[in-house]
């Protein structure tokens, strides 16, 4: 479980996060949503320790991140899997080498054991025959799946995804969403996803945190988001006619 208490982050005069408190639970897909500029990416980067913050605390299963030494922070990070918005695959390595990289760095497995694990994980993300391709030869969807494979290959306790669906067609986006949810359930990972995609919110948002102007404006789940009367949430989530209709149908069905 990840617990965030009163998180403040500024860039010069501009305060981007204004005291966010929330928890992200184990075995659940936790979504952070909000408009562009609401502080989602900054929040995610603070969670990952890529940004320092002025006030507040973030604890990973009781360990307060800011109180850890640099070496302890690195050890904690080795338990984190991250899927970047642009996949961030190492372009000098093949797909199999990218996936094997965390194993080479953090385990003492033999080459054949690592190879078996890579084969297993690539099969898990439906990329059985892509081992020797370079990232530049893979499509956007394939790159995202490789990034997921790399993130989960070393059995992480925490999985972070920054806009995992951006730039993907709706069908591939659903495949990626389902894959993340299956992996979260299967390995009981604490998953935190930063997303703009309303399909993801409805499909896999077991916990949803809505940010507005650097503050937590609402939190709930993909069930309660239909019922909420929070104006900021409804303006954001149901801005399209399609989602307005979906909400209306849901509320009529669940009267």
């Amino acid at each position, binding site marked *: 479980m990840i617990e965030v208490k009163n998180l403040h982050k500024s860039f010069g005069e501009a305060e981007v996060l204004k005291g966010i408190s929330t928890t992200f639970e184990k075995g659940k897909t936790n979504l952070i949503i909000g408009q562009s500029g609401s502080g989602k990416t900054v929040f995610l980067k603070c969670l990952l320790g890529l940004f320092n913050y002025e006030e507040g605390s973030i604890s990973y299963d009781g360990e307060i991140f800011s109180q850890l030494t*640099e070496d302890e922070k690195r050890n904690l*990070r080795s338990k*984190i899997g*991250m899927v970047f918005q642009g996949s*961030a695959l*190492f372009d000098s390595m093949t797909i199999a080498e990218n996936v094997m990289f965390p194993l080479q*760095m953090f385990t003492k497995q033999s080459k054949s054991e690592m190879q078996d694990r890579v084969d297993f994980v690539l099969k898990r993300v439906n990329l059985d025959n892509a081992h020797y391709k370079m990232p530049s030869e893979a499509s956007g969807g394939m790159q995202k799946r490789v990034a997921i494979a790399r993130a989960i290959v070393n059995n992480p306790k925490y999985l972070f995804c920054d806009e995992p669906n951006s730039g993907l067609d709706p069908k591939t986006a659903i495949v990626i969403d389902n894959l993340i949810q299956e992996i979260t359930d299967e390995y009981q990972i604490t998953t935190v996803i930063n997303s703009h995609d309303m399909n993801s919110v409805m499909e896999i948002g077991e916990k949803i945190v809505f940010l507005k102007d650097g503050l937590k404006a609402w939190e709930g789940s993909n069930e309660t988001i239909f019922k909420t009367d929070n104006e900021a949430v409804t303006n954001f989530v149901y801005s399209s006619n399609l989602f307005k209709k979906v909400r209306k149908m849901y509320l009529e069905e669940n009267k």
Partner: protein
Amino acid sequence: MTYLYNIGNYFLMIAEMFRKPTKWPVMKKLIFKDIDDLIIGSLGIVAFISFFVGGVITIQTALNISNPLIPKYLVGFATRQSIVLEFAPTFTSIIMAGKVGSFITSSIGTMRVTEQIDALEVMGINSLNYLVFPKTIALMLYPFVIAIGMFLGILGGMAACVFGGYTSLENYILGLQTDFDTFHVIYSFIKTFVFAFILATIPSFHGFYMKGGALEVGKASTTSFVWTSVVIILLNYILTGMMLG
């Protein structure tokens, strides 16, 4: 203030580079890859430039010695001194700041832009050790490149001398052997080791700490070339004053 901040940050980067080393089997591969990219990949251009500049130095020296009292073997002597003391260690390093330095800055800068460095950090890897340390070790072989440059420069001078008819082969070789001081070669290689460290770290600094997108990668490469050259020229002056002055 920005200059002071950057200088401080550069030294912090160097200290951080030696902390939490990457596992040796992985590091070994990185070092060999960087030897191939930075050292083997530079041999061609260094050989080509050294040979022809050696020839030019010989021709210019020979053409400027018009006084019959000056012995003809002085051409070989002057060529040797110019190449061993300055051309091979210093001016080849400036050329390498363009070739190797730009390569290092743009490759690390591209990794920064595409979040590959963030990916390393999130995994708990000391990205400075992973990216900069192998380049620094690979460039410790740079004196071999300079040794080849010295040899080919003198050979180029000999070819120009003999085929251009400026002086005889015997006179040129006599000049090469006249007043030979081993310390000059040692001085030259000490400079080369220092320049190798500069060639690895300053371009890495500019790539690692760059901000922005693709356009900024290009700008960082240019800035890195300028600063690497400036530092090499300044250190050349200081080291020459310390060792030969």
